[in-house]
């Protein structure tokens, strides 16, 4: 059982890494933000499994918090005009 849960967590973390490529590469801010949202959902899943695996029920509360923050990020993204973030190789480093 534990092995299966661990494998599930590992799989999800590898998913995170894949999502990270979108965050890093872009190219459009929508790509980045969608990837970040995916990030939020995946971490919620990771935390829920970890709660079971490590027998720390409080991690479910952490997952709840993550879910809420992901919702906030999405609103923030819609509310903020992000057109200036489009250029990848901006001179401003």
């Amino acid at each position: 059982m534990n092995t299966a849960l661990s494998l599930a967590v590992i799989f999800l973390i590898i998913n995170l890494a894949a999502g990270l490529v979108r965050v890093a590469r872009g190219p459009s801010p929508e790509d980045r933000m969608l990837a970040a949202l995916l990030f939020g959902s995946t971490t919620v899943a990771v935390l829920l499994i970890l709660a079971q695996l490590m027998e720390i029920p409080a991690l479910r509360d952490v997952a709840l918090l993550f879910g809420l923050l992901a919702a906030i990020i999405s609103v923030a993204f819609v509310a903020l005009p992000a057109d200036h973030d489009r250029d990848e190789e901006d001179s401003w480093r």
Partner: protein
Amino acid sequence: MGISLVIDVLLALGLVGLALQVVAGPSLFRSIVLFVVFGLVMALAWARLHAPDLAMAEAAIGAGITGALLLMTYRRLVELNPEKRGETYLGSRWLAAPVGVLTGVLVGLIGWAALQLPPGDTTAGTLARDALDETGVSNPVTGVLLVFRGYDTLLEMGVLLLAFLGARAVASGRAHSPGTSEVSEPALVGALLSLVVPLTILVGIYLLRAGGHAPGGAFQAGAVLAAGGVLLSLTGRLVPTDHTPLVQRLVLVLGLLVFSGMGLFMLFAGSAMLSLPGTWAIYLVETALMISIALPLALLFAQAPGLKGRGH
């Protein structure tokens, strides 16, 4: 044991890789986004290290509020100078190699030193666990923060107040609206807000209440409330004011006043400074702290001395 170690290796690699990308990445905006992701991975690491209190704080404050502050500042800098001219990243490329070697040595020394140290048998922490029953709370972290080392927490509230005062001292006078009230907003924002904002309040109160016996507490709850405030000011529901209204000034210092006021009362009643008269006092102080954490964080995000509802 073996297979769950893979999780730790992946998280550790993720942290180091993200840190490298944040530092060496080509674009500043990307570095900020990756820093937020770093915070999220850090929260997972806290979970793996049996520190759910920290996982919450990291998600809400470390990644959430800090990330929002960084993005907002980036946006203001771009507004001030849309061409982003005259900025280069590496001051001198020839420094990169020696500094790299130097920090490599530093990393080796710190890592080595940390691994050499044998963990002490009786630490202050084990004493705290043993003495937890006296406090009336069963979450040891809350016990340490409010009872055993409440003085640190109190001074820390001073630091937060200072951040607000300092930001107000350097503010340029004209209030700046972080929201986009001029731009027409998508129709769904209003609906989503009326769902999410009550939820932040609910979660905040839940975390505060939970803090006594389970992970959570004033800091996490305050940060969640602040996130709600950030949301409202982002969408123009809260607009900045030029001065700090009296009520908000009171709220900003409420935690300090309640905590140290009660402490002084106990001191002059013959007990020790900052000793708390009962479990109710812990919750009272925590509530005051929560409010006094939420407001300055929201104000710092808005980069304004005060906030008011739109249309007032």
